[in-house]
């Protein structure tokens, strides 16, 4: 009996060790997806910090960025950097416009209505995308064809490596922006206390618009950089939900937390998809979110928020 157990344990260890390369691949590709989730999560953190709203159309901003790049590059035949720049700019303009028209009047009513308003905007955007480009997957131009980047021993395509670099750069860029620039400080003041900030001479409305515009920029960067990984189709807005889980996991008010949460989520997702079942891949994000919100709502790196009566 004991021998049998020992032999079976040995067998399983041998299997596990022989699986090691695969395990390594699974984890590395998980990190690749996770950085993308972290980037989207950053946009959530930004909005949550500045306006205290969960933005349900964040994912659709990503979709919009990707689709606009396709539009500018493939339909108008602009060169790629110009197309990417234009689509990021128009995503910013669109987000600021939508927030100003659809959500700004609702802030003083109640938070519930703002959240439902973002859901409504998400439905509208998704439908308009489907109306113009159709429900099928759209081919996306290869952004990094001319500048291949490959790290020996790491099973990631050059586009994924580029995406990880871009995402890390933009996340650290935003962290620096928040910490050291004048506007970043003003934004932080706004999210701490709106009325005091406005007494200090900060234009709170403009700061809100700034935050939404930045979230549009991050969303479209994520959509464009990750387009090769999550194919471009109208429902690609689901990435927004994953990004949100990332920001919850890492800490709803911390910027490095979003990246950490995204990487953890990506790795866990890939592991569960590989070892348990593919359907479980989608469930794991939801399970993590429910668990985190109940057990530790402030996330891994976030500071607990004390709510005063």
């Amino acid at each position, binding site marked *: 009996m004991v021998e049998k157990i020992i032999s079976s344990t040995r067998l399983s260890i041998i299997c596990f060790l022989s699986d090691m390369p695969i395990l390594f691949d699974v984890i590395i590709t998980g990190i690749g997806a996770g950085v993308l989730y972290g980037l989207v999560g950053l946009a959530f953190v930004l909005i949550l910090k500045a306006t205290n709203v969960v933005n349900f159309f964040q994912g659709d901003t990503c979709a919009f960025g990707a689709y606009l790049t396709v539009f500018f590059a493939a339909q108008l035949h602009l060169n790629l950097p110009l197309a990417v720049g234009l689509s990021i700019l128009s995503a910013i303009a669109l987000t600021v416009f939508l927030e100003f028209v659809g959500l700004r009047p*609702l802030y003083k*009513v109640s*938070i519930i209505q703002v959240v439902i308003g973002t859901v409504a905007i998400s439905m*509208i955007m998704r*439908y308009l995308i489907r109306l113009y480009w159709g429900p099928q997957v759209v081919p996306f131009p290869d952004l990094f064809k001319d500048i291949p980047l490959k790290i020996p021993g790491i099973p990631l395509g050059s586009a994924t490596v580029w995406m990880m670099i871009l995402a890390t750069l933009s996340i650290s860029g935003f962290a620096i922006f928040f910490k050291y620039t004048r506007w970043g400080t003003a934004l932080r003041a706004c999210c701490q206390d709106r009325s005091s900030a406005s007494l200090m001479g900060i234009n709170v409305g403009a700061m809100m618009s700034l935050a939404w515009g930045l979230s549009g920029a991050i969303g479209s960067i994520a959509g464009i950089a990750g387009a090769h990984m999550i194919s471009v189709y109208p429902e690609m807005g689901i990435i927004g939900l994953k990004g949100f889980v990332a920001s919850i996991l890492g800490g709803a008010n911390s910027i490095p937390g979003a990246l950490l949460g995204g990487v953890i989520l990506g790795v866990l997702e890939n592991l569960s998809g590989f070892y348990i079942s593919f359907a479980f891949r989608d469930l794991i994000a939801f399970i993590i979110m429910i668990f985190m919100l109940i057990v530790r709502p402030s996330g891994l790196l976030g500071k607990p928020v004390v709510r005063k009566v």
Partner: protein
Amino acid sequence: MLKRMSTNKWKVGVLVLFVAFIIIFYPKIFGWYWAFVLVLAGCYFLGALGYNILLGLAGQVSFGQAAFFGIGAYTSSLLILLLDFPAWASVFLGGLFAGIIAYPIGIPALKISGHYLALVTLAFSEGFVVIFHEWVSLTEGPYGLKVPLTTFGPWDLKTEALYYFVLVIVGILAFTAYNIDRSCIGRAFKAIRDGEVAASSLGINLMNYKTMAFAISGFYSGVGGALLALATRCIMPWDFDFRLTIALLTMVVVGGLRSTIAGSALGAVLLTFFPEWTGKLLEIKELMYGLLLLFCFLFLRGGIVGGLARAKDKIGARKQLRPFSGIRHGNA
């Protein structure tokens, strides 16, 4: 003043009789197709009523209503298919099971609120869609579950018999909801909605009432889903995804968040009939829901019922020059 009241009561009485007459003889007048559309509207009405009890009455934001609807639908159809239950019992048990599943969601609602609660319930609902989709041995997964024709006593539940069956159940449940609204439970819900801390300091047990709000809401939506399964006789996993939640939410918001029964009924009937009637709107349903939600929030707070009440107040105030125009409705 007294005379005015009595004429008003007469008017209301005549209106109620007229509506009752139309509802009872509706299949005879408009034919079975429109009767079926009204059956669908009745199912969605129960779903929207459950949503309104949770969102409008108890003030808990939930994006998981579609899951309760789906649990009711799948439970009742499986009871009919596998255990050969009678229709009425399967509908009741479907609702009950949805209520039991919904009950524990009230517990996280104690700790988190607002948009975080919305996210937890959304995750819960999407998780159930995955379960419906992947548990192929039980739910047939993506092929959909086909429900056999059921009977109630001597009648086959199709066309007119189905209409009256749904009508009776909807009537009973709407009457119950009306009583819940006015009972101590309803008042406790409203107190929690208007101020949790104040409510709990007045001796309202938040744990009991929040879980109860979720359970009642789950029961209503579950019965709605079970009736929908009996009516359409084929259910698919993605019938119960986030889009259904949005549809129910739009019904609630268009009808009126604060007017539990009239608002839900008006919203459900309008949003089910209008696309069927115009025909073209079926394809752009989602766009319509999004635009309607934004429109109602921006310009018509309190929905149609709230708007009507406000208009009535205004007219009354102009006629009588009363110093107070009564309680302001709407402003959800």
